[in-house]
């Protein structure tokens, strides 16, 4: 059986099971209980968003909705209040779309060129630059928040769309550059040398040789950035300003606004709506997402 060699990293390597033993049952029981723990909050979130408040009061959070309704989804989308404004989540959704659509390509293109330059066009101090950039991946954002507020307001970009895009680009750079540098470093150097011999320059090699080869890694980077930027809270809160408030910030404001009894139906509907985009990306992308995780988890 072991003569069938599968590529490393795909085949489980743990001790081989002999029969259906007590250990085996224990393993499945453990996994199933864990799966339940992970799934329950999502189920509760969706079920609660479909129940009326009277039903929530009457039953418990694990009960199925008796008269499922999407009224609260509509309310959360278009008329839930944050402070005095009652436009729902919709403006936040479109702001998040704007921020994501602008930040993702900008940050990826720059990181791609960085990674390319760092792996093939070594120059004096390039190792040091890379080390500092990596250090940037570890620095808590809060340490840099004030200097960036100050810098951006000096040039009049604080609280604007370009401002938040710049912030996302800068903070995405360490991890994305690392991702692309590691990818380009794994390509054979001969490829680069051959192109050099043929007389191709920096940009020619980049566009004709490297770009077509980096499609898979770019997909990983896109997934990483879309979920990362969509889920961002603190940058949106600090840098986006009232006009460009992303969905996560608006979600939090809607939930904080509720006075008296907390209206969980609307809150959970808003939560489901905000989580829908990254969840769809996650379920559609599957293994790609997992590949990006080891690199992307630093973003937190």
């Amino acid at each position, binding site marked *: 059986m072991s003569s069938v060699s599968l590529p490393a990293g795909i085949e489980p390597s743990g001790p081989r099971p002999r029969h259906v033993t007590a250990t085996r049952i224990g393993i499945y029981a453990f996994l199933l209980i864990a799966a339940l723990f992970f799934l329950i*909050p999502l189920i509760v*979130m969706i079920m609660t968003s479909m129940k009326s408040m009277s039903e929530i009061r009457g039953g418990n959070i694990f009960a199925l909705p008796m008269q499922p309704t999407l009224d609260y989804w509509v309310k959360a989308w278009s008329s839930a209040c944050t402070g005095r404004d009652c436009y729902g989540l919709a403006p936040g959704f479109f702001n998040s779309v704007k921020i994501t659509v602008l930040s993702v390509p900008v940050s990826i293109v720059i990181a791609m060129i960085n990674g390319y330059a760092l792996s093939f066009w070594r120059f004096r101090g390039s190792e040091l630059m890379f080390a500092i950039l990596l250090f940037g991946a570890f620095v808590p954002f809060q340490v840099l928040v004030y200097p960036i507020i100050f810098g951006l307001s000096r040039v009049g970009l604080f609280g604007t769309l370009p401002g938040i895009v710049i912030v996302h680009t800068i903070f995405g750079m360490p991890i994305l550059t690392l991702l692309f540098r590691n990818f380009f470093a794994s390509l054979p150097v001969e490829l680069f040398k051959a192109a050099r011999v043929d007389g191709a320059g920096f940009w020619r090699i980049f566009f004709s040789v490297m770009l077509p080869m980096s499609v898979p890694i770019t997909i990983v980077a896109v997934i990483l950035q879309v979920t990362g930027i969509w889920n961002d*809270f603190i940058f949106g809160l600090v840098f986006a300003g009232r006009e460009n408030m992303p969905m996560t910030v608006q979600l939090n404001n809607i939930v904080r606004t509720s006075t008296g009894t907390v209206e969980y139906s609307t809150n959970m509907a808003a939560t489901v709506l905000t989580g829908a985009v990254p969840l769809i990306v996650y379920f559609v992308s599957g293994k790609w997402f997992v590949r990006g995780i080891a690199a992307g988890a630093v973003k937190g």
Partner: protein
Amino acid sequence: MMIVAIGVFVIGITFTVVLSFTNSKLFPSFNFVGWRQYEILWSTPRWVQSVTNIWFYGFGHIVLCMGVGFALAVAMDQRIRGEDAFRTIFLYPFALSAVITGLVWQLMLDPIWGFQAFVRSLGFADFTFAPLANGETALIGMIVASVWNGVGVTMAILLAGLRGIDEEIWKAARVDGIPAWRTYVSIVVPMMRGAVATALVLLVVNVVRTFDIVIAMTGGGPGIATQMPATYVIDNINSRNVGHGMAAATCMLAPIAVLIIIQAVFRWRASRRGRTTS
């Protein structure tokens, strides 16, 4: 552009550290006051509480993520059926923002609507599990939520490490009659220390910046029971006490600096070992 980013990191950190020695309010001033801000900082109860909180929260979060993550990874590595389905389930919370995590778990742990009410409705009238309602236990609730969000990543990294172990190791251990748990503890874990280190570094980095989940779940309360250094820094910037906030931010940098030095030492030792053996 790379230079701009590096410039932002280097200049930004320098700026933060310099300002921490001034009495800046809303705008930066260069009125140096020495260590005054740090003295005030460490005698402010809310800051001291924040630091205590992050130690407790960080310890709980990291130990649980590593423990549960490793247990899940080992279980996933037993040639089980439906591995992809389990992996998808364990990892999806990570795709959700910490704000969403915080809000969902706030409902789950709500004493009137959540888990406690459910168990009580089953007839256990004295059952109590509503950590967020009480200042002494609120952090536990937050740990539960953050582990739910993050343990999948630890599991994925450790699983990749387990898969990197040569099958022959297992055969050899079995021939020698070593029990499986012993093989894990004494052979496999030391062999995958790279994956363990990666998972650990990621957890530490994420703990230090903990912010979103606090805001969404408790807003720092009850009282100041779940305040964190990150919320302290942001609040001080908002309340126009920048010099003080920057002193707090500089203190947040310290554990990261320690981490990087440890990592550099390890890399240096590894490279030296590589040279002597070759």
